[in-house]
């Protein structure tokens, strides 16, 4: 795996939040490419290489998906369900990253095989180490299966 370019798919409707994630992950130099889409529909289009994302070279399979739950058009949970019920996508680790700490959201996410559930902290002093940990854990320590 060493030297292979690493791609993260960031599904986030809030530009500001996307910027926060991008800044941090870049700072830690953990990912080569962060692909940011703003709604559930776009996320699925990317994963299924539809329309603008049909070129596999410019739209590679992500090694990690950071998924918000509250999304326009197609809800985050729907995106999760689609990924986890598709044999081609099921192995991609999906980390839910949202502002909601509602029990219902957490439960539903795990019921649909989310790999992890994180609540966005209000404070950057907590947000930064969290994002750093995600990167190290999922991209360095975690032994991922071979994603075709």
């Amino acid at each position, binding site marked *: 795996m060493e030297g292979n370019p690493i791609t993260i798919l960031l599904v986030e409707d809030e530009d500001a939040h996307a910027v926060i994630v991008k800044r941090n992950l870049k700072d830690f130099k953990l990912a080569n490419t962060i692909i940011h889409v703003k709604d559930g529909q776009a996320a699925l289009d990317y994963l299924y290489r539809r329309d603008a994302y049909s070129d596999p070279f410019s739209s590679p399979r992500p090694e990690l998906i950071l998924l918000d739950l509250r999304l*326009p058009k197609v809800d985050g949970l729907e995106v999760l369900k689609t990924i986890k019920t598709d044999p081609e996508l099921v192995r991609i680790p999906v980390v839910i990253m949202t502002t909601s700490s509602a029990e219902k959201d957490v439960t539903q996410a795990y019921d649909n095989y989310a790999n992890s559930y994180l609540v966005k902290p209000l404070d950057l002093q907590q*947000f930064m180490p969290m994002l750093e940990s995600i990167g190290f854990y999922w991209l360095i320590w975690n032994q991922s299966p071979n994603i075709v």
Partner: protein
Amino acid sequence: MQIYNKLCYLTICSLIFIFAPLTQANKKTDSTTLEPISVQLRYLHQFQFAGFYAAIDQGYYKEAGLDVTLIEAKLGKQTVDEVLSGNAQYGQTQTDLLYARLQGKPVVALAPIFQHSLTALMVRADSDIFSPHDLIGKRVMLQKGDNAINTLAMLHNEGVELSDIEVVKQSYVIDELVDETVDAMGVYIINRPFLLNKAGIDYRILNPINYGIDFYGDTLFTTEDEIKNNPQRVERFLQATLRGWQYAMDHSSEIINLISTQYNTKESPEHLAFEAQTIKELMLPSLVEIGHMNPGRWRRMAEVFVNQRKIPANYSLDGFIYTPDKPWYKQLWSRYFAIAIILLLVVTVLFLYYWQLSKRLKGVIFQRNVAEKDSLRLGHVLEQSSNEIYIFDVKTLRFLQVNKGGRDNLGFSMEELYELTPLDIKPEYTLQTFSEFICPLQQGEIQQLLFETLHRRKNGSCYPVEVRLQMYAAAERPIFYAIINDITDRKRIDKELLEKNAELEQFIYMISHDLKSPLVTVKTFLSYLTQDIEKSDSTRIAEDIGFMGTATDKMSRLLDDLLEFSRVGRQAKNIIPISFKQLTSDALQLTAGSISEKKINVKVNVINLTLLGDYSELIQIWQNLIENSIKYMGTQLNPTIEIGVHDSIGKPIFYVRDNGIGIDSQFYEKIFEIFEQLNPGVEGSGLGLALIKRIVELYHGKIYVESKGPGKGACFLFTLPETLISNPQENDDGR
């Protein structure tokens, strides 16, 4: 009934009260010890005293508890004096009795035996004396003064005074009349005329009665002491004597025989028979009750004494006339009275009894009528009740009765229902499950079953019901009866409530998420800003501030919209008529800035329609829809918004159409949910369409969107039925 019982008791008591003393009195006469008493006769034994002999012989005195001794008169002894001196307790004498009383002697007249005096004047038939007046200058033999008083009174009345005649001393024999040494003789008419007749001389009687002087004859008497000391004996003696007289009058020959054989009499049976005949005429036993006494006659007799100057005018007869101290119940009139009262009581009691009976019967009938009326009314009420009431057989489960409410809702007639069982209308139960279900009710383990299920109508449609099932086993044919509540409304309300609750939960959830999101942004970029200022990275500083600005704008807008949203339906409404034309032109006025900025063509297809509603609510529908169209116009070269109404059979459908970016059919419903935004790039909180939907629903309307796909525009259609209710045009359509 109590009154009746009391009256019965009262009647019986009165009967005892009235008869008890009588039976007691009768008992007394049964006594075997006889009281000895004596009766002083005025003369020797003869028919003049027949009553005494009869009473003794017939045992009347014995019955009265008396042993009676009769004492014959002795020469020189006055009858009254003998009785007053106590030699005898009773006596029978003539007018001298009244005179004695008027002289103050305490004698009491018990009963006159003869209704008329026996004292009269007798003259020879061959004499020239025909009236008292003819006696003037004649020799007249009178009785002793007091007994001849009626004779004297007669003479006086006829204008003959004692000085006008020659009074000769009484000899008590008829010889003087026979040898004509006297012209007239005062006699006791029962025996002297007989003697004269015997001597072969005819006679004539000058009777005072014929001259207006009517004295009582022989009178039974006693003393005041006797009456005071032995009142009962007096009464018993009197009654027995009178009975004796009655017997003697009815059986005179028997008594004549009795006197002749039992009593030492000088008189022959013929003489006695003559006496009897004369006495009968005087006593008038068949006309006047024996012993009848009239106080008025005693007073008239006393007046004669006064006129004869025998006594002063201020005499008193008080205490002279015997008034039996009879207990009131013994008196004849009071017996009749008592009998009448008893009869009256009996009749009253019977009347009351039947009255009570008929009243009770009437009451029973009335109560029964009331009960029948009540149960009939209950029957009508149950039949007409909108609650469904089913009665069905315990064994066959066949319906026996279903009220109107049940028949109407089910759509079956009673004839059809007779062939059905509850299973035919309860799709959720089979025979087995239903039997198991009602088993505890049938076994009496529980009193009722309360459950919810579905009922299927004749037309196949189902409605939710609440069933209260009970068994009535007391009837000759045990039945189940069920009261059914159609709970369609309740279920609908429950569902609405659940929806509202879910909506509220969603609302809170969304608020927490959507408000938190910009807050995360602000706080995070504030930290970045601090770092970037330290590094003096001007590019990053500008970027940080930009994000923070966007986030706070978003928050502000969200809060405004939330406020707006929460106001809908909660503010006091001001319902007024607003024309459709007015609403559209006002909405376009409010959005005029954006419309002209984006150079949008607006087409309005107005019809003449008046809506009834709250202006601020209704205007928001069109305003928000127009804003929504402007927002999602995209890069259309010829942007157009069309506003209008399809009026199909009185149910207008309003529309706002644009030729903007359109909408994928999968999002048709999602766009109306709160905080949903299809395009993150577009300004807005995601509340606009949710707000419109909410207002439309307040007017019981529906809103939906149609689009031929992305890039092909969208058309929002909605109804507002509630705004049309009072529209006369609509009413005419019979809505």
